[in-house]
């Protein structure tokens, strides 16, 4: 009954849901907001992308992103190192902002996504998955890997006037992480999760 309807999140227009062809998305007829999508591939795809992203996340944070050479002396930094410097220079708020948007939010997002999706793939729901779905929604705007990557490139060009700059393994890992996180979120649609759960429920009813 009501589950055949959808209300646009941007303009509240009530519309009937329609079945979509794989790879297409439904848009609001009045304000053209994207209402829901049907990804081309199964739930396996966001899981695969998210696992790749976790591996890249570890590499990106473990290795230096940039190194600088002046007169035979070299300094290098990881992302955590940059956040710690902010702390040391008496700017704990800036440190928290950098850490929160580039480490904590993306990491929480990936872990929450895998925690919800992997058991669902095998037809199970983990305890607390509703809270995690909501968490995913809340933190999504605060994960800023792509902005940090642009920040890395801007710093690289700025420092070239001053000294020899060497891009580190961390920089490349961050670029790859940016692409895989985008792929993970692009193939994942929260509406699909609820659809999946509804399908599981009806399957149980039949059995």
């Amino acid at each position: 009954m009501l589950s055949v309807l959808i209300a646009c999140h941007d303009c509240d227009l009530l519309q009937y849901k329609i079945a979509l062809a794989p790879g297409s998305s439904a848009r609001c007829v009045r304000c053209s907001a994207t209402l829901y999508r049907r990804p081309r591939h199964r739930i396996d795809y966001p899981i695969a992308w998210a696992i790749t992203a976790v591996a890249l996340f570890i590499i990106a944070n473990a290795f230096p992103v940039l190194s600088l050479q002046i007169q035979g002396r070299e300094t290098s930094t990881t992302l955590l190192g940059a956040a710690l410097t902010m702390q040391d220079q008496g700017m704990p708020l800036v440190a928290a902002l950098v850490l929160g948007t580039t480490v904590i939010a993306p990491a929480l997002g990936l872990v929450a996504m895998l925690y919800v999706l992997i058991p669902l793939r095998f037809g199970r729901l983990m305890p607390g998955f509703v809270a995690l779905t909501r968490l995913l929604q809340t933190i999504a705007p605060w994960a800023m890997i792509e902005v940090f990557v642009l920040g890395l490139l801007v710093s690289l060009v700025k420092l070239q006037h001053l000294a020899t700059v060497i891009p580190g393994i961390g920089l490349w890992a961050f670029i790859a992480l940016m692409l895989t996180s985008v792929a993970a979120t692009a193939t994942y649609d929260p509406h699909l999760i609820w659809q999946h759960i509804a399908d599981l429920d009806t399957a149980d009813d039949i059995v």
Partner: protein
Amino acid sequence: MARQLGLVACHVCALVCHLTDPSRSAHCPRCAAKLHRRKPQSVARTWALLLTACVLYVPANWLPIMHTGSLFGAQSDTIISGIRYLWESGAYDLAVIVFIASIVVPLAKLIALSLLLISVQIHWTWQPLQRTRLYRALELVGKWSMLDIYVVALLATLVHFQAVASITVGSGAIAFGAVVVLTMLAALSFDPRLIWDTTETDG
């Protein structure tokens, strides 16, 4: 409109639910989230966050975000003087990127959100589609203002060669970071459905 039929979409799982008496609290039958017809106190909250961001916008641009010490003396840079330095040293593309991310985007957000709020408060019915598009654009570009914070953090970490050159963060970075966070929170607490509410009451 869902509202006129006593229906509301759950903000977590998007299920359309009955909400006949909005004064009583109701929960989504599927995911148990609290149901709201519109984001609670959207206009008041957005104004509060926006005005705080406006106040902090002044120190964010006035105070230096970066101190540079080198053999040639000490220098303090605000956001604008940093951009001017980039431009004068010939890095035009970089200067334009930083100018857009640090000056244009925050300012555009402050102005556009104020316009949206005023348009909702005076029950404007003009061009709801364009105003919704404006809101979507704001949500999309908001985070890019964080660029300068990351750049300053990276420069301050890498450049510390005692006598030759060293960079430290200035207090403007706190104010600027606060402006970015506050404008993002303001955009998140604004409910675009309010734009459409006024267009439908007479229809």
